[in-house]
């Protein structure tokens, strides 16, 4: 049903596409992280698609991959009921990607969560600080190499 969105993105940005697939209604485009802002601007501004909602953004840690983190963005059109998923790989050595807050204001807190949990940093984010963990917390707990038994209490003993 959202194949039209996928086709439009593939036609518009042929040089920035790494991969794409469409399976049982899951339209996914994997793009280079440098192209994130222009792809998202295109989706939002296109009068035919009318993608008007950033549903969620999150991150996945694939420690075995060369580019370790995969940013995942879900978009939705309340008008046309289109759904599209944009993914962008981010490497551990350069954990930077452009912030979507200039286009979608609701990206603010999810991006802070991704920064808190995975350590991916967002360029031009208005307030890139931890949102869930406390200031004293070291590391990023949802990274696969964070020790599963590691505790960092502020008060009291390790338990």
């Amino acid at each position, binding site marked *: 049903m959202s194949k039209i969105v996928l086709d439009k993105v593939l036609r518009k940005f042929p040089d920035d596409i790494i991969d794409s697939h469409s399976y049982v209604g899951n339209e996914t485009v994997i793009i280079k992280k440098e192209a994130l802002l222009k792809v998202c601007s295109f989706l939002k501004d296109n009068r035919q698609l009318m993608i008007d909602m950033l549903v969620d953004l999150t991150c996945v840690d694939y420690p075995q991959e060369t580019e370790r983190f995969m940013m995942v963005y879900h978009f939705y059109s309340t008008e046309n009921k289109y759904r599209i998923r944009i993914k962008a790989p981010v490497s551990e050595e350069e954990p930077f990607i452009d912030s979507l807050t200039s286009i979608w204001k609701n990206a603010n807190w999810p991006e802070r969560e991704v920064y808190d949990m995975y350590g991916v940093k967002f360029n031009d984010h208005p307030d890139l600080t931890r949102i869930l963990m406390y200031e004293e917390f070291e590391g990023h707990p949802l990274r696969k190499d964070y020790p599963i038994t590691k505790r*960092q209490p*502020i008060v009291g*003993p390790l338990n």
Partner: protein
Amino acid sequence: MGVKNTGIENILGESVVLTRAESILNWARKWSLFQFPFVTACCGMEFMSVYGPHYDAARFGAEYPRFSPRQADLLFVVGTISHKQLPILKNVYDQMSDPKWVISFGACASSGGFYNNYATVQGIDTVIPVDVYIPGCPPRPEAIMDAIIKLQDKIQHEKYQSRKSYPDLGKNNKPGGENE
């Protein structure tokens, strides 16, 4: 209550009741537990039902919540405590004036429950002393009333000045608001 058959009852008749100071003090304390609800998670729903009219915790003299810890006797720790939340709980406990009691409400507060991860405290008794633990996820209202009755029983049998200051459980764990 405490003293029996001293012969003085025969003289005074039923106009006087004799007891020990400790006994009447504990009796007064156990029927006037002003509680501070430290509610953080889903156990709060069961807590609310117990403190509503249906189960009516007022029967145990423990219905009146004080939202200042300085006026509270009984700290109800209801729900999951994260490491981020723990300094606040510690502060609340330190601000309560003696004598004070703590009820650990539900699996999470007692042991961390099924949250054995980077964020969750594995039982509040690692930092503050607990008098009664209530198991359950969340506990039934009957279990909560049972806990209040058990706490009343414990208070009734407390000896004067038998309460000790709680042990130093951690390196930063000093009373007096150093963790603010």
